[in-house]
């Protein structure tokens, strides 16, 4: 709801096509692509009439932009959908090109750059490369009043969700999750935010079973200045 509200507040006409199901990312990531062509075709049908398709999940947008070309026939509709599917932050910085936000969030925020957004969509520079530092999420967060971004020890380490990995490799997944939580908490964050809901769900789950526990919020909610 925050994504919808945020976009509308910025003057965008937003429609949620109710026929939509799922982008099919789990099928792609598990290698079990049975019926993916049909699911992808349904996605294209559902969304081809719109100028832009925006998702509050970088991994879903990545599935469409980087992988759909393997599973859908090349035509005007599919080309349009593939090239016009955006993750929320990059839509705000690159398409809407917003320069300010009317939002206040007076908290210490730990930003979790989800891996799909970071390394597939180049939402930010990654620590592995020798490149000039930039971050679209940070660019947006800097427009929010009174928000303090904490510095993490491992700026862009994976949270350990990984889709079915979270269940099939439960031990490693949780070990990774605990490591991330500790990084945020020990550096003073009172809330962990991310561009990906699945990362947040996983970290929330970890914290639900341990003493070290702080809030989690999607970046869209923070950009609207919603309360903690």
């Amino acid at each position, binding site marked *: 709801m925050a994504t919808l509200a945020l976009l509308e507040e910025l003057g965008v006409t937003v429609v949620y096509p109710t026929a939509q199901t799922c982008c099919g990312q789990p099928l792609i990531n598990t290698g079990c692509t*049975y019926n993916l062509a049909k699911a992808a075709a349904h996605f294209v049908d559902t969304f081809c009439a719109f100028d832009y398709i925006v998702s509050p999940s970088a991994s879903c947008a990545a599935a469409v932009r980087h992988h759909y070309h393997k599973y859908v026939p090349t035509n005007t509709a599919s080309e349009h959908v593939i090239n016009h599917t955006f993750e929320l932050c990059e839509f705000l910085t690159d398409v809407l090109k917003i320069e300010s936000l009317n939002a206040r969030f007076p908290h210490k925020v730990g930003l979790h750059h989800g891996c799909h957004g970071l390394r597939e969509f180049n939402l930010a520079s990654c620590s592995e490369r020798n490149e000039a530092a930039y971050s679209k999420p940070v660019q947006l967060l800097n427009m929010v009043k009174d928000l303090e971004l904490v510095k993490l020890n491992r700026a862009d380490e994976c949270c350990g969700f990984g889709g079915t990995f979270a269940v099939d490799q439960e031990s490693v997944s949780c070990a990774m999750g605990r490591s991330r939580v500790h990084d945020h908490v020990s550096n003073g964050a009172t809330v962990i935010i991310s561009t990906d809901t699945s990362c947040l769900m996983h970290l929330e789950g970890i914290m639900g079973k341990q003493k070290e526990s702080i809030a989690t919020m999607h970046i869209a909610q923070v950009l609207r200045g919603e309360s903690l």
Partner: protein
Amino acid sequence: MTNHAQRASAFIHQSGKSPWHDKALWHVRTNRDKAMATIPEWEQLRETAQQIKAHTASQLDDYLVQFEANCKSNGVHLHWAQTPDDLNKIVLDIARAKGAKHIVKSKSMLTEECHLNEALEGAGLIVTDTDLGERIVQLRQEPPSHIVLPAIHTTKEEIGELFHKHFASEKGNNDPTYLTGIARKALRDDFLGADIGITGVNFAIAETGGIVICTNEGNADLGTALPPVHIACMGIEKLIPAIEHLGVFTRLLARSATGQAITTYTSHFHKPRRGGEMHIVMLDNGRTALLGEPEFRAALSCIRCGACMNTCPVFRHGGGHSYGATIPGPIGSTLGPSQNIKAHQSLPFACTLCGSCTAVCPVNIDLHNQLLTWRNRIAKAGYVPLVKRLTMKLFGITIASPALYGLANCFIKVVAKVPVLYRNLTPWGKQRSMPVAAKKTFKTMYVEREREQLK
């Protein structure tokens, strides 16, 4: 047959080493980052290295023939081996011809791939691994857990015990300097008494017939300066065209591996030592097949730096032995299935597709994309477990139909109301609390809002 997940789980829950192992390897990753920051042209170097390797692969036959001709004119014996058995036999034949009894070996993952030590020991020879980390795992009778830091999973207490048992070092003295001194003395005798020195190869130069070996300890240099016979074992993919290309690789290798600007010894061999002889054994073992795979052939560019292992959170938390493969980590998870898809089917799934490995690879191998492609191949080959396959099939059918999708959501809402069922449907709930199902789905809220606006 255990798989990666089971072994990693044991490492995390039983060995107690996981946080320590993770911290140690992250430290190595950090050192790599610091070294990278001193080289403004780092990304350019990576691209150049990638192109050199890709070019060499596209003309590998010509370069191998050129390499052989140059080795011959240098007085070096070159042997071709298609399988590990072929390689082991070639080495054994040389050893027998020389009446050799004792062999010293510097680090060579290729010889691990061939299980050369077992083959030689089976024939009555004594083989001493001379890289300190390799010597430690050799005495512990286990394989290395990392291709550059073979004993990264062992503590100094464990090594102290080990050396007390094998070298009569002081019981309870676990000081690394003391223990290294113990090993130095013992291995020195091995170097001086050996009949043959076996090494690996970091780079082979087609234009000159030379090979390059990089170490920090100097064990490859001792192992080749002293024994009268040097046998170098290499994969055919180690070839690069010319000496000048070494500038690129020697600037990338150590920085990527440990964060050092260069290894202590970067040794170039063109001829045997005076009074000695030199052999090079080149191995195929599936490399020519991999060359024919457009989606995977980039893996042949690997310069065995280990950076992908140091950055991979699955490797750091789960340990190198969890992979059950000669080469572990991200690169091992694509090489392994290419050699034996059945044995290594769990490896491409031991990954969250975070992409950190691809970003650190000095030769720009698209590691995480290869692992994703492997998942598809493994699923098509029928190796994905039945439950997962059926679940995904059901999922695929459901999301292609809005009606079925709606039904599925209702079903999940019902299940979420029965905590016992919800928690135990998957292993999610073992160490995590269950996600709280929203009271209303987004779709419901949206439809309600639309209705309100119409009024």
